[in-house]
């Protein structure tokens, strides 16, 4: 099979309760495709962190997952406030999350570093006032 499978999701930014829905669905889909559990776990965690970020920092966005023979690609796209200093945002522990977010269990500043750790390739394009596009790939072999 050389065709690319695509899963698309609109990520609702107004409802914290539903954050992570897309990632749970992707995990199910990847299991159905029979991908190795370790690959599925890495994709799941990376996408979940990214999806949560879109909800808590950017007011929602869009997520696309492409599955090719070589890798699983996660594209996250939002029209949120953007990231002023990506290098700083990538530091472990750096977070602009409010106490309210922390009381919900998030905002430790480990999301972006975690996404980097679990993916084989990660690219962040962000512009203040315009939004953030993140591409991650997890190699299958």
């Amino acid at each position, binding site marked *: 099979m050389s065709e690319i499978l695509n899963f698309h999701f609109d990520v609702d930014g107004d409802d*914290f*309760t*539903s*954050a*992570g*829905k897309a*990632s*749970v669905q992707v*995990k199910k889909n990847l299991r159905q495709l029979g991908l190795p*559990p370790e690959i599925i*776990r890495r994709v*799941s*965690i990376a996408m*979940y*962190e990214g999806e*949560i970020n879109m909800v808590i920092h950017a007011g929602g966005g869009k997520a696309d997952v492409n599955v090719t023979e070589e890798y699983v690609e996660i594209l996250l796209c939002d029209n949120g406030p953007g990231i002023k200093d990506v290098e700083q945002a990538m530091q472990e522990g750096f977070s602009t999350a409010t106490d309210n977010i*922390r009381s*919900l*269990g*998030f*905002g*430790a*500043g*480990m*999301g972006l*570093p*975690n996404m980097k750790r679990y993916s084989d390739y990660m690219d962040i394009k962000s512009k203040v006032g315009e939004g953030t596009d993140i591409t991650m790939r997890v190699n299958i072999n």
Partner: protein
Amino acid sequence: MKINTIKDLLNADIICCEDGLEHHVYSACGSDMMSDVLAYVKDQAVLMTGLVNSQVIRTAEMMDMKCIVFVRSKLPTAEMIELAKDSGIVLLATSKRMYEACGILYSNGLVGNRARNV
């Protein structure tokens, strides 16, 4: 340790997915910060937490965990229970506090970190 033993040791109530009680688990973690669970947990199959929201269930699902224990008499919402059922994650609830609940399981052999391939 069987999940059923966890239930007995913590005097916990089963909230859903009874079928999973016979599963064996080898390590656990305790946290109210899902961010930390996502960043630091490796193979731990049990999550002890005092946090109650849907992200607790989704985080456990992302980490391939088998069981969540709610401490301090916290109870999950109906929506959380549905999510857990969908993922086959056993939910337990105990009146014990985090420190005590973790201590009981640890001293009965459920460690925090298990070397891989053992």
